């Protein structure tokens, strides 16, 4: 099952709008028709911090419609802070779209999407495409607290059923979103997920138990983002669709399974059953 390939370039864009969803979470809308034209659900870009003094930052493409694309930023360090500080009219540069997105080609009809925190940014396009293709789509969306769930209505508008959870119980289910998802009696035929690593591992486990296929969008520290440095790897099953097509000693030091694939290039979306983490 080959995943979607991207067609990338360096983009110089202008900030159209900037919305603070919650303290430290910002959506930046950009005039980026060229990106909109080529980006696919699950793609990401490498955003170049305005001062040019810092390394570029991987960001999922959140919205892409008409001439506007947007990114959702959680301010966690100096690079995301610098990017989140841009004002309308200012310039933002990035290169992309990059990576292999979600594989939505297989006609799944009942899809559950599980998202944690700003992981939500990487699944909206997928939700829209699935609904457009006739699938019934549910979003399970978890965050630390209510304020962070601000953009859930975008999924409702897209035609998804939305189930929320907060760690502090300030909205929806009180607890982890994966606990809520695990309770479902309406078994989906596909799960997509994006969020922190522990959440993805939990999704992976639940999907295995339910015997459903799952696609996970992974996050790691990136350097190049384009597959050039082999810094962002994860163990996958040798011979899987996403394993690199050349010989490698395995992680066991033998010529066996598993081997390392690049998250930025072979991913960031992986089939759960091909991962060996």
């Amino acid at each position, binding site marked *: 099952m080959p995943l979607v390939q991207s067609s990338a370039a*360096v983009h110089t864009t202008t900030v159209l709008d900037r919305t603070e969803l919650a303290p430290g979470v910002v959506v930046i809308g950009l005039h980026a028709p060229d990106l909109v034209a080529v980006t696919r659900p699950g793609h990401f870009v490498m955003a170049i911090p305005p001062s040019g003094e810092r390394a570029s930052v991987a960001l999922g493409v959140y919205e892409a419609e008409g001439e506007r694309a947007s990114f959702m930023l959680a301010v966690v360090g100096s690079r995301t802070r610098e990017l989140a500080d841009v004002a309308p009219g200012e310039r933002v540069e990035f290169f992309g779209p990059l990576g292999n997105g979600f594989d939505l080609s297989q006609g799944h009809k009942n899809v559950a999407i599980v998202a944690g925190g700003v992981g939500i940014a990487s699944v909206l396009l997928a939700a829209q495409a699935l609904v457009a293709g006739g699938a019934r789509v549910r979003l399970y969306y978890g965050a630390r607290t209510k304020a962070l769930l601000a953009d859930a209505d975008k999924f409702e508008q897209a035609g998804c059923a939305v189930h929320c959870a907060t760690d502090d119980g300030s909205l929806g289910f009180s607890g982890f979103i994966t606990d809520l998802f695990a309770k479902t009696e309406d078994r989906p035929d596909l799960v997509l997920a994006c969020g922190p690593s522990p959440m993805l591992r939990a999704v992976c486990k639940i999907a295995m138990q339910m015997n459903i296929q799952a696609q996970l969008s992974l996050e790691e*520290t990136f*350097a190049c983002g384009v597959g*050039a440095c082999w810094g962002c790897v994860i163990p996958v099953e040798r011979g899987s669709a996403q394993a690199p097509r050349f010989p490698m000693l395995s*992680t066991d030091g033998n010529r066996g399974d598993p081997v390392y694939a690049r998250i930025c290039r072979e991913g960031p979306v992986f089939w759960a059953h091909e991962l060996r983490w």
Partner: protein
Amino acid sequence: MTDLSVSLGKLQLAFPTLMASGCYGSGEEYASFIDLSQVGGIVLKSVTRWPRLGNATPRLVPTPSGMLNAIGLQNPGIDWYLEHEVRKFADRPCAIIGSVAGFSVDDYGYITERLARRKEIAAIEVNISCPNVASEGETFACDPQLTKKVVELTRSVTDKPLIVKLSPNVTDIAAIAVQAQDAGADALAVINTVRAMSIDVDAWRPRLGNIAGGLSGAAIRPIALLAVYEVARAVRIPIVGQGGIETPNDALEFFLAGATAISIGTANFTDPRAPLRIVEGVRDYLQQRNLKSLKEITGKANVGFSNAHQYEGDEG
């Protein structure tokens, strides 16, 4: 027209900019972002005798003005490489320089001989600044005798230009440089990454799967620049300066210190157009000063210790 071409021994480069080994894949990864005919050449990821999985993860850690990496030479090994990879390089619009890494002196000779035979490969970079299992974790470039042996052997198996890549993690890099030159190197790459580490204070564990890694990026630029300056005063062969070069100004510092060409690694990660911006800025600089070629500035900050007070000078 301002002439930006340079030569490293018999290797002619249209531009003085190489893309650093391990940072640029085989160039294909960057072809959609910049016109590869505008860079001098691409140094390929180092290749070893056997396939290598590389190091355990994580392999990358961001640090102030730089980054740590410990990739561990993940690569398919020379057999697969010659059969499947090298032919893809035939139509690259710039020089393609192979990089070889070994775990014994013999490895270097074996891989260099096989790789250098291929017409797609214009020159060989001998990466002796990678670990040497044979001598217990030390790298070849930390030992003048091993440096000499590796360079003599690789020299004996090919006439193609040999660039020997040195490590900054030594007491006296100029002494190693002289060994490499005397053993037949056509040029020297100065420097590879600086050994460093980072610790996760929540997990009480090194952040890199490999514990230690190599520091690259702007943080090491002043260290690399001094290394180039000192090596330039000790050898007669050309130097490929590298370590944290991001802007035209950075590149000019290295030319003035004595580098004939430069390599760009980490800066590509921030912005793939960095190599173009650097070349443009260097060209402007030369034009504004009515300088015809890079030769007119190479090594020109390489002043003697002319300062009257130098005799008591130090870094205290």
